[in-house]
Structures are given as structure tokens and as C-alpha cells.
């Protein structure tokens, strides 16, 4: 009896030790990630800060580093991201609603589902080649903003659809049943109850996918988006360039001044990304607060 108690006590101590080791390992890994990010940000900031000024934002690129700026690329990226969002978010959410709420379980729909899941893992260059063949050449959209946005939309649609489907599936079925019970139609149920409840999850998916769209270069290079351009786009049917392409081209130059400019470009890109994500988080928080169940 006595022996058993001591044994049990040891076991508990051993389990607690295991738990503590696990906890500290996880904690350590988190801090490692944070430290890596901090090093990266510090490195970029220390190299690029000197180049960051108003001229950098209002000038276009130049072969003279002291004159070079990011104006056309910044506006190009904004045009690209906004157009991509306008195309992909409604399409993606609509597709998710259809697949989750309306589609019957049959072979065609299963086929579509499997394909959407697989597309999320396809390398971006493949979407670039698709965009070049279909949007740039077949539809004659060349290397315009609209061609870039449609290509980017293809790239991020699978992510949006998958995230939105997960979010819609997580809405408790009792909500739908309650709506039907008081005589709501399917459309009313989805629009007034399921969608608002799923909004926070959908927004998370949108954040992830838009962050991907803003940082991609490969599909843009493939559809022939120029790196050197001396004007910002004024419409969907104009050539443009984007921030990551400008950064890439500066980073590949031999002169050190351009590497500093690339770092400054990264700071601008990160700022745009943070502003975008902050807006999305704000929307998500508000949506969550509205839920009363």
C-alpha cells in the first residue's frame, strides 16, 4: 500500500515534468520565430531606412539610385490588389456558399471540390502560364492591370474558397434549422444568418490570400508585366508594375545603393500589407461582436 503510493507520486511528478518540458519547448520555438522575424525586420529597417523619404514615394524608378523611387510600383500594386479583391472575394465566397449550402452531393460536385483543394497547392508560375495563354493572349488583355488581377484571382481563389467553406461549415446547423422553422427561405437563411456568422472565418481566409497576391512575382513576370515603367496606371487596360517586381529588380543589381532601395521597398510593401491586414482584423472584430449566440 505504502509502496504503491510512492510509486503513484513519482508517476505524477514524471508526468508534470513531461508537461513542463513540452510547454517550454513550444514556448522556445515561438520565441525563436519572433526572434527570426525581429532580426529580419531589423536588418531590412537598418538597410532601408536611410532611403525612405517622400521623394522615394513620389519618384519613379531610375538608373541613378539617388533619384530612384517607388511611385509607379506602389500605385501598380494598389491597382492590382484592389482589382484582384473585387474579382476574387465575391467569386470565391459565392463558390463556397454554393458548394456548402446548395450543391447536391454528386460526382460533378465532388470532382469540383477535389479540384479546388488541389489547385491551392499548384505553384504560382503555372497560374502565370495559364494567365499568359488565356487572359493575355486569348482575351487580348496583354500585360494590363486586368490581366494581372485575373491571374492573381485564379491563384488565390482556391484559398478563399477553402477558407470560406470551412467557416460556413462551422456555423451550427441549429441556426439554419431555427431560420427554416420560422419560415425563412434558403436564401434568407444564408444571407441573414449563415454568412454573417461565417464572416470572421472568411475574412481570415481573405487576409491570407491577399497577402499572397501582394507578394507574388512569378505569375506577373510570366504574363510580361514590365519592371521598368515611368507612369502609374490610370485604368484597368494599362500596363503596370508591382512592388515585389521592383524590389526584385533592385536586389539583383550590382550596386549597393540599389540593395538599400530594395530594403526601403520592402518596408513600403510591409506597411501596405500591415494596413490591409489591420483593416481586415478590424472588420473581423466588428463581425464577431455582432454575433449574439
Amino acid at each position, binding site marked *: 500500500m505504502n509502496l504503491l503510493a510512492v510509486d503513484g507520486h513519482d508517476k505524477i511528478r514524471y508526468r508534470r515534468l513531461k508537461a513542463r518540458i513540452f510547454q517550454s519547448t513550444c514556448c522556445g520555438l515561438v520565441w525563436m520565430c519572433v526572434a527570426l522575424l525581429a532580426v529580419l525586420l531589423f536588418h531590412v529597417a537598418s538597410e532601408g531606412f536611410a532611403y525612405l523619404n517622400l521623394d522615394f514615394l513620389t519618384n519613379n524608378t531610375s538608373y541613378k539610385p539617388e533619384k530612384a523611387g517607388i511611385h509607379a510600383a506602389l500605385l501598380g500594386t494598389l491597382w492590382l490588389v484592389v482589382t484582384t479583391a473585387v474579382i476574387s472575394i465575391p467569386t470565391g465566397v459565392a463558390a463556397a456558399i454554393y458548394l456548402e449550402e446548395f450543391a447536391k452531393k454528386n460526382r460533378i460536385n465532388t470532382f469540383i471540390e477535389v479540384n479546388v483543394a488541389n489547385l491551392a497547392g499548384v505553384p504560382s508560375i503555372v497560374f502565370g502560364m495559364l494567365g499568359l495563354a488565356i487572359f493575355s493572349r486569348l482575351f487580348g*488583355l496583354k500585360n494590363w492591370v486586368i490581366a494581372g488581377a485575373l491571374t492573381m484571382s485564379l491563384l488565390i481563389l482556391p484559398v478563399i474558397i477553402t477558407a470560406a467553406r470551412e467557416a460556413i461549415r462551422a456555423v451550427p446547423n441549429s441556426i439554419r434549422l431555427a431560420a427554416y422553422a420560422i419560415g425563412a427561405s434558403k436564401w434568407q437563411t444564408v444571407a441573414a444568418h449563415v454568412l454573417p456568422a461565417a464572416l470572421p472565418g472568411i475574412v481570415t481566409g481573405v487576409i491570407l490570400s491577399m497577402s499572397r497576391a501582394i507578394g507574388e512575382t512569378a505569375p506577373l513576370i510570366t504574363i*510580361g508585366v*514590365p*519592371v521598368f515603367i515611368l507612369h502609374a496606371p490610370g485604368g484597368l487596360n494599362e*500596363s503596370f508594375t508591382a512592388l515585389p517586381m521592383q524590389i526584385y529588380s533592385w536586389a539583383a*543589381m550590382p550596386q549597393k545603393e540599389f540593395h538599400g532601395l530594395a530594403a526601403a521597398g520592402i518596408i513600403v510593401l510591409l506597411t501596405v500589407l500591415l494596413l490591409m491586414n489591420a483593416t481586415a482584423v478590424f472588420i473581423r472584430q466588428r463581425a464577431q461582436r455582432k454575433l449574439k449566440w
Partner: protein
Amino acid sequence: MRISTLALSTALCLSLLAAGCTGGGKGSTASINIDGSSTVFPITSAIAEEYNEIDKNTQINVAFSGTGGGFAKFCIGEIDISDASRPIKEKEEKVAVENNIGFIEIPVAFDGISVVVNKKNSFVDFLTVQELKQIWSADGTMRSWSDVRPSWPNQTIELYGPGTASGTFDYFVEAIIGKGGSMRSDFSANEDDNVLVTGVAGDEFSLGFFGFAYYAENKDKLTIVPVKDGNRDPVAPSMSTINNGTYAPLSRPIFIYVSTESAKRPEVINFVEFYLDNAAKISEAVGYVALPKPVYTMSKERFHAGVTGTIFRSAEAGTDIEQLMHAAAAKAD
């Protein structure tokens, strides 16, 4: 019911796309579209920038999807000018002929492929073309420094070079190993020359090669290796040795190809003229080396006469450009 839903949604999608297509045309501004080699990109974009100062109405777009990617677009008539770090290939020319695209080949500058070693490496005084061949070719016999010269340390040579897709790689293989030979594949390859610079600078027994501009910007981190060709004295690359042709066979010309159809448009004519007038000055400002002056004059004549076809594809690596162009001009007369 199912069919009609499908038809309706398809029609909706198509009309949305069509809405995106309409409203083409860019008003009164003319535009010149350029794509191709990332090696030529710094020169072409710098010239486009200067040209924009005198002609604000022409909008010039320069992309860099690589020499091959540029020719792929050029040969089906999608772009006006193709930047190229090597002459057009037969396959590519065939596509151009099929699509009725003529081209005018214009050399615009020199790039001197520079062979470099680590700063700490004090034993290498020069390397011969033969030695480079034995070091780099797949069936070569030199794998450590002591294989090259017995007095050098018995350490493996760590190799750094551009990726196989780059024009620099192609030219090096042709000039050093020769047509038909193959390069060894066990070297650290990277498309970004800055990565190669860092690699060689951090590896004591390394050997690497890349464009002259990347050596010129990193002289404090690297030691240049003079190259000895045949019985001549070893020559190190510099603005003057590359320009006057003594740094052979590793000086290579880089090109622009102008479509004959585009060359009928006044803005393209003006731009190409401006290019040839300023190529010498601008190429040096961005780290490349100017061609001998007469070459630019001869190119201008060729451009105005509309002489199509390539004269550089069949030329051997290291051929004197001036003589080559004289010979071509004489043949034409």
C-alpha cells in the same frame, strides 16, 4: 433546370470578362514594348529613362522574362524590341520566319565575364583557357588546386557560377569548353550574381565567374583572375581591356533585336537611334563596357538600311566585333 443554371452562370462569367476587355486603346500616347534578358535590362531601362526626358509622349515598358522568354514573345510579334544576352537561336528564328517577323540585330555593349577567387587566395596569378576548361568541364582532370599547378595547395576547388538558363553560362561554356562539350554540374549555381559574390567571398578555396559589373562593385571582397589565351600574356578584365578586345575570349557582346514591322514606327526609329547614340555612355554608367565607336556607327547604318538576320550566331566566341561587322557590310555590297 440544372442546364439553365449552368448556362446562366457561364453567360454571366463571359459577360464580366468581356466587360474587362472593352475600352482598349490608350489615347494619343505611343508605346514601345521591350522584354528579354535581365543582363541587358539595366542598359535598356536606363536609356528608356533618358529618352523619356526628350520624348514624354512615348511610353516605354521594359520587362525581363529572360533572353529565351523575350525571343518567344518577339518571334510571334508581341513585342517591339527584344533584349538578348546571346544571338538568336535557329529554332527561335524559325518561329519568327513562320510568323513573318523580320529582325534587325544590334550589338549594344560588352560584358566581360570575370573569373574571381577569394580575397585570401594569394597563390593564383592567372589561369589559362585550357586550365579553366579542365576545371569546369564534366570530363576535366582538375578538381583540386594542386591539380592545376603542383605548387598550389591540395584543396578542392569550390565552384560558383550562374544557372544553366542564363546567357552568361551559355557563353562561358562556348568560349571555354567549346561547342559540344559539357559543363560539370556539381557547382553552386545561382541566377542571382549577388549570391555568387557572397559565395566566393566566403569560401577560401573557391572559384567563380559572373558579369563584370558584379566584380567591379565588389573589388574589396574578391580577387580577379587574369585569363591567358594561347600564347598571349594573361589579361584581367577592365573597361579598357574589354573595350579593345584584348580580354578574350570572355568578352561577349549583348544585343537588342528590333522587329522590322515596329521599325517602321517613328517612335521606335527615334528610340533606337537614341539608343545607339547613348549606349556607350549609359552602358558604362550602369557597369557594362562600351563597344568600339565604329560599331555603333555601322549598327546605325544597318538599322537604317533595314538589314535583317543574324551575323553573330555563327561567329566564334571572342571574335573581333568590328571586323565581323565590316565583313558583313562588305558581303552585303
